[in-house]
């Protein structure tokens, strides 16, 4: 028995030693970054670690709503999160964000004024823009024999079993609202229910509800059409040249994702150092080159390769932008309705 105890004890010691050994190489603490999947050039994380000696614990989420749940259920501690506009205003409203000390983020000057003081954070105390983009439709030109111009292609019965759909309530219900001619931000219960009815009508045609799984499915020709974010569409097209991307004529969603610090973050200064690092023009450019999303900084845009800089998908024409609508945060009763209706769709 003694031997067992000794063995256990030495094992514990050994393990705690290795744990310390891992930690001691980075003396400046750590920063817990929580980001969308496929949404950063991971080499930049190492670069940041080398530059500052701060260890990055990097984890990902698939959509704003699950990020919110994880924050809310208190199971995790993060220092930097990168939600979208409407989610940021929800987090501000619920007092879930720290104000950022902009003295620690001098690189904020590199962000264009167009992306400062936006509606979701009017006084710009809580957020630093990360990337922006517009939602559109990715389709496989060998499988869809016309050029889709409308969200209706997602309801095309000829494509039954080949259609992918967003696996998060805001984007999916939003598309149905838009194709019915309503606003993304409607608070009218009847309109939202009508939209979900339309999604239930679509369900038999849908192959799968996806988030980042769409990359594999579209690239491999597993599905013909699906809505996704513009930057990711460029990634998919670069992997499979048969793919194409359009902005539907009904209008679409224009989003800004920004870096924020959740309330009570344990490493607030490290978080600010990280945010500052991500705002260096070279870093922003390298990041944009990797994930193809649109950068909110002209200084960074100048550093991009011409092909990306001139891309109509990453930097859409003015008429697309005119028709694009930003999500705003919805009142709690509507959010509850969204949750209920979303489950009604998934359970249908």
């Amino acid at each position: 028995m003694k031997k067992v105890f000794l063995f256990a004890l030495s094992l514990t010691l050994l393990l705690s030693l290795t744990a310390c050994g891992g930690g001691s190489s980075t003396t400046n603490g750590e920063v817990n970054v929580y980001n969308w999947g496929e949404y950063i050039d991971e080499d930049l994380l190492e670069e940041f670690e080398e530059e500052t000696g701060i260890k990055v614990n990097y984890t990902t989420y698939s959509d704003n709503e699950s990020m919110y749940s994880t924050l809310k259920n208190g199971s995790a501690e993060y220092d930097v999160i990168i939600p979208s506009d409407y989610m940021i205003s929800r987090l501000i409203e619920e007092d879930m964000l720290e104000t950022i000390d902009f003295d620690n983020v001098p690189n904020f000057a590199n962000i264009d004024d167009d992306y400062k003081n936006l509606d979701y954070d009017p006084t710009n105390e809580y957020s630093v823009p990360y990337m922006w983009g517009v939602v559109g439709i990715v389709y496989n030109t060998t499988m869809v024999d016309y050029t889709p111009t409308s969200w209706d292609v997602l309801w095309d019965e000829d494509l039954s079993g080949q259609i992918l759909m967003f696996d998060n309530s805001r984007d999916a219900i939003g598309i149905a609202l838009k194709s019915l001619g309503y606003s993304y931000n409607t608070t009218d219960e009847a309109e939202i229910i009508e939209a979900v009815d339309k999604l239930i009508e679509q369900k038999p045609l849908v192959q799968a509800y996806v988030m980042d799984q769409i990359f594999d499915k579209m690239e491999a020709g597993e599905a013909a059409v699906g809505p996704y974010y513009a930057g990711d569409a460029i990634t998919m097209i670069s992997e499979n040249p048969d793919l194409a991307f359009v902005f539907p004529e009904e209008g679409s969603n224009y989003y800004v994702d920004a870096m924020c610090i959740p309330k009570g973050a344990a490493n607030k200064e490290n978080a600010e150092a990280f945010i500052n690092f991500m705002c260096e023009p070279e870093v922003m450019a390298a990041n944009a080159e990797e994930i193809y999303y649109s950068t909110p900084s002209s200084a960074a845009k100048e550093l991009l390769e011409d092909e990306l800089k001139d891309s109509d998908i990453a930097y859409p024409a003015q008429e697309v932008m005119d028709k694009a609508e930003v999500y705003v945060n919805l009142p709690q009763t509507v959010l509850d309705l969204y949750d209920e209706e979303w489950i009604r769709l998934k359970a249908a």
Partner: protein
Amino acid sequence: MRKNGFFARLGLILTMIFLYAPIVVLIVFSFNSSKSRTVWTGFSLQWYVELFDDSRILSALATTLEVSVLAMVFSTVLGTMAAIGFYNMRKRPRTVCMAINNIPMTNADIITGVSLMLLFVFAIGAFNSTLGQLTGVTLKLGFATLLLAHITFDIPYVILSVLPKLNQCDPNIEEAALDLGATPWQAFLKVVLPEIQPGVLNGAIMAFTMSVDDFVISYFTAGSSTSTLAMEVYSMTRKRISPEINALSTLMFVVVLSLLAIVNIRSARQEKAAAARAAKLQGKG
């Protein structure tokens, strides 16, 4: 012993194909030279190279081994103690204890996971808003909560494999040892422990396996900065899939295969040796 007919053999073979076809596919495509999981484009070891370059997977592997070994040690000690305690209880309290002990095993994993998460979040919240504020310590979900959860679901398996061995023990032997002047501790070490040792060992192995294999309970109790291999695999399947997963599966399969082979060859040998010894003894008699 009557032998199986043609259909029975065929059924067995088909079942084996069903069980192994997916694994064969995984292994074959771990050597594919392109990212495709369905089209063979040539032999390459690049996914293995990338796997060993992937610091996230490696650290998840380390976490998995650490938590499994620690949970195994703690649950084996606690579980063996508890089994001895239960064995010496009167019938009624023992029935109650065994019923509670069975809960984590019969309950769905997701319920164990969710309930433990509620407990941890509740306790941590209570601590952080009172004692934590006084002392400046903030707790969070992480390795410690993961370990507590693993010990909790491991112990019942240890108890279940130790108890039957205790039931087989002859209580008179221990009494004899005590009568002959052994201290209770000596009697335990020299008499009881060797008797129940196979059960303890079996329980330890089971606890370790359960810990390595667990996904659901870890998913709910590990928090943000700790990730086990199973959690890492899950998050990988939710993103763009890299054949690194195939490489990982292949390696795990090979490790398990060799472990099982070693264990079985050893036990087969021991059985043979035991049979030979028995034959000799009988010869003597």
